[in-house]
């Protein structure tokens, strides 16, 4: 991190033509990441972007950093090897709902459990795009697709809740259409030391167009989305007239007015684990708005820093290679 020259978005754009379908949500995510990276204070030779397979996983080709487009689902494992080999690098994983939640589910939970310092951006479009339109592990039940003509039968994963179950230390969500929000969340995730997980709701305009329209259409979004801010009451609605209170162990929507005031609302504290769990569980509850923002963050030692500590401790003993090779029971033949 020796670079002092201020980089710009252009510095992070590679010379390759971007090949996503016109209108794909991935374009704005790419642009927002390219805009955010120059402000992270990290020089581009110290950034590695790793991906798996899927539309989103073409991402590294378009970033003028070090990049690795690996194999399906394995990006967190490749990225783990990169980070553990050189902890000075800023490591980013770009993945999708099929890549991270289905074929790569195992790596996803284990990297979170280990808390290796990297940033995972999951582009969730609730559909398989690259294979042309099968339902994904985040598709809603009953999804009619090429592979499920009578509707899908499996219940969807809720990625932030899964991240919670895997002991994630930074869990957040944003939406492709909310550019500023996305930029902020990406920057916050970069600051977090440990595995940060950001779910980005992303529209696939070819195979699942409008999947998030209730969260993005100007007329309705304010009533359906709640943007969480640390230290602020959980307020939402076009007129900022609705909020969340705790009714027993559950959230309940109330109207600000005669019965409730702003002071009655829950104040968001991303360090509160119980609250974080409740927030991530809101996603599929039809009576509650869909949360975006930082659900939860926690300071916890990272695997990579502990690995370095162990190595440094072991190095206190000066052992030479020849004596290891000789072993404890050697003999000489004259």
């Amino acid at each position, binding site marked *: 991190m020796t670079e002092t020259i201020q980089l710009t978005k252009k510095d992070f754009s*590679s010379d*390759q033509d971007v090949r996503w379908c016109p209108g794909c949500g991935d374009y704005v995510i790419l642009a927002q990441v390219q805009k955010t990276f120059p402000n992270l204070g990290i*020089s*581009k*030779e*110290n950034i*590695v972007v*790793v*991906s798996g*397979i899927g539309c989103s996983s073409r991402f*590294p*080709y378009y*970033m*003028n*950093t*070090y*990049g*690795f*487009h*690996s*194999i399906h689902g*394995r990006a967190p*494992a*490749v*990225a*783990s*090897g*990169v*980070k*553990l*080999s*050189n902890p*000075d*690098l800023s490591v980013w994983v770009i993945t999708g709902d099929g890549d991270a939640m289905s074929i790569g589910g*195992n*790596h996803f939970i*284990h990297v979170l459990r280990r808390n290796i310092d990297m940033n995972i951006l999951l582009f969730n479009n609730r559909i398989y795009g690259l294979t042309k339109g099968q339902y994904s592990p985040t598709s809603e039940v009953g999804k009619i697709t090429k592979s499920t003509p009578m509707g899908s039968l499996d219940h969807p994963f809720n990625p932030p809740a899964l991240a919670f179950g895997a002991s994630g230390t930074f869990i957040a969500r944003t939406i492709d259409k909310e550019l500023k929000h996305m930029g902020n969340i990406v920057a916050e995730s970069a600051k977090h030391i440990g595995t940060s997980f950001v779910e980005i709701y992303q529209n696939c305009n070819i195979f699942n167009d409008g999947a998030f329209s209730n969260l993005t259409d100007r007329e309705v979004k304010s009533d359906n989305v709640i943007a969480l801010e640390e230290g602020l009451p959980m307020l939402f609605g076009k007129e900022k007239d609705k909020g969340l209170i705790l009714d027993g162990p559950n959230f309940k929507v109330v109207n600000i007015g005669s019965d409730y005031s702003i002071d009655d609302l829950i104040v968001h504290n991303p360090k509160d684990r119980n609250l974080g769990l409740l927030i991530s569980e809101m996603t599929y509850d039809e009576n509650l708005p869909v949360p975006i923002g930082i659900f939860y963050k926690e300071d916890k030692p990272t695997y990579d820093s502990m*690995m370095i500590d*162990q*190595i440094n*401790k*072991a*190095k206190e*003993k*000066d*052992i030479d*290679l*020849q004596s*290891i*090779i*000789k*072993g404890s*029971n*050697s*003999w*000489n*033949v*004259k």
Partner: protein
Amino acid sequence: MSKNSSSSEVVTIRFSGDSGDGMQLTGGQFSDNTAIFGNDLNTLPDFPAEIRAPQGTLYGVSSFQMQFGSRNIYTAGDDLDVLVAMNPAALKVHVDDLKEHGLLIINTDNFTPKNLKLAKYEENPLDDSALDKKYRVIKVGMTSLVTEALKDLELTAKEKARSTNMFALGLLYWLYERDMQTTINFLNKKFKNKPLIIDGNVKALKTGFYYGETIEVVKTTYRVDRAKYESGEYRNIMGNQGIALGLLAASHCNDIGLFFGGYPITPASDILHMLSNYKSFGVKTFQAEDEIAGITSAIGAAFSGRLGVTASSGPGIALKGEAIGLAIITELPLVIINIQRGGPSTGLPTKTEQSDLFQAMYGRNGECPCVVVSATSPSDCFEMAYEASRIAVEHMIPVLLLSDGYIANGSEPWKYPDVKELPKFKFNYAVENSEDFNPYERNPETLARKWAIPGFKGLEHRIGGLEKADKTGNVSYDPDNHHLMTQKRQEKVDIIANFIPDATVLGKTSGKLLVIGWGGTFGSIKSAVVKAQEEGLSVSHLHLKYINPFPKNLGEIILNYDKILIPELNMGQLLTVIRAKYLVDAQGYNSIKGKPFSSNEIFEVIKKHLED
């Protein structure tokens, strides 16, 4: 108490008992002691896949065999001179391998009606004179003698009984005129916080030794003279130890960080265990969540400028297949170690086999050639792990190193090297801020591409599993480019033949029969060929360590013999490769029993081929 001593040249012994009887430890102790004494030796541990198979059963028998002697030893031996049977099941499983008039040492305390039934004996074989007629039998109530000797120690009955293996070891030490000190040192170290356990075990060991000295039954002890070695520094080494040390040396002597990503699997896990102890050298070991994460993390490490290594056995290598392809198309240096075991599927986890050669050669999608090298014995593992690392970084290519269960767990004396004299690797690092850097620009001699490592300025680039354009490495779907790159990946492997040693023949460089082997069959084939040569037969031996590519001179050598015989512990995999490559009518000899060839069996096959 008169004691006669007679001298033998070569002896084969086997400790056998229940899998909870500590036979592996006993055998390991005897072999370390034997090595330090100065005999050449070779060992064959054999144990069930279950950690504690039901006690007393036939399938729960664990054994440790070794051959040692005053001349060169290449195998763990065929027929036994001495069999130690700690229970009826062990006797039943192993007694037929004992030579006539061989020494049979039995722990009679375990010959209870229950154990006899579990071993499927109708009658107690100890009551039958048949054993005594065929073998020299020493019947000892080892458990009760040990319990009696330890009666004053505050140990539980179970703890006392568990020292019985030390009694057997002590008896064998006496039989072969050995010093017990190596084992006493070992026990002091192993149980350093449990002084009572040390006392118990040392006492049991001495009780066994003195029992041999005292009792009238054993009239002769055997002295096996020291073997003649070339001068140098030696130690005893197991195959997996050799691999771990070879990787460590490759890393340390060439100033390249070692990253090992792996998932536990028999019989490869010991490599992970050993490397995890070398943190003081900066070695990073990563016990991944699965086999795929094991190799992909190692690929990530290779991308980041480290020596990336993963190790597994057949089933794990199958899972890694797609990732090996990724390492091949991204042209990253990677060492992939397969400690082969019996297959298919879970197969025989603790038994040896050579049936993953096809997997190594062809087991991936697409045209996906991989460098394949193989270790021939425990003491060869160090060199081949070092070689695999060298080829990987010098040629920017994944290298598959094949070992097997026999090599991995077997041990033999090793003349270890002076680390200062190990060859230094030639790296292909890209120069920081180089003008017009192209990730797929190649070294004209090796065709290796440049290694551009994250953190270095001006070398930012992207690689991945999609086909690469020549030179730039950008994604390319161009038909001619794909054809060209496919050829280059093959050529890159083929060209390595210029950078590996020629094959050498043991014996005459032409003649009637050439026996070609690879991997852990080295000892059996060599012993058989030496014996055949001593009998004047026209036979030579060639053992391949480099399989893809083959050494350049292999085709020429093959032409110098009338017949080619290829014994393998598979259905004829090297045979198929050699027949295809050299259009030669080579014949196979194949056995898939989960155990090494005996040298007698190879000797008979050699004779038969020379008669036909």
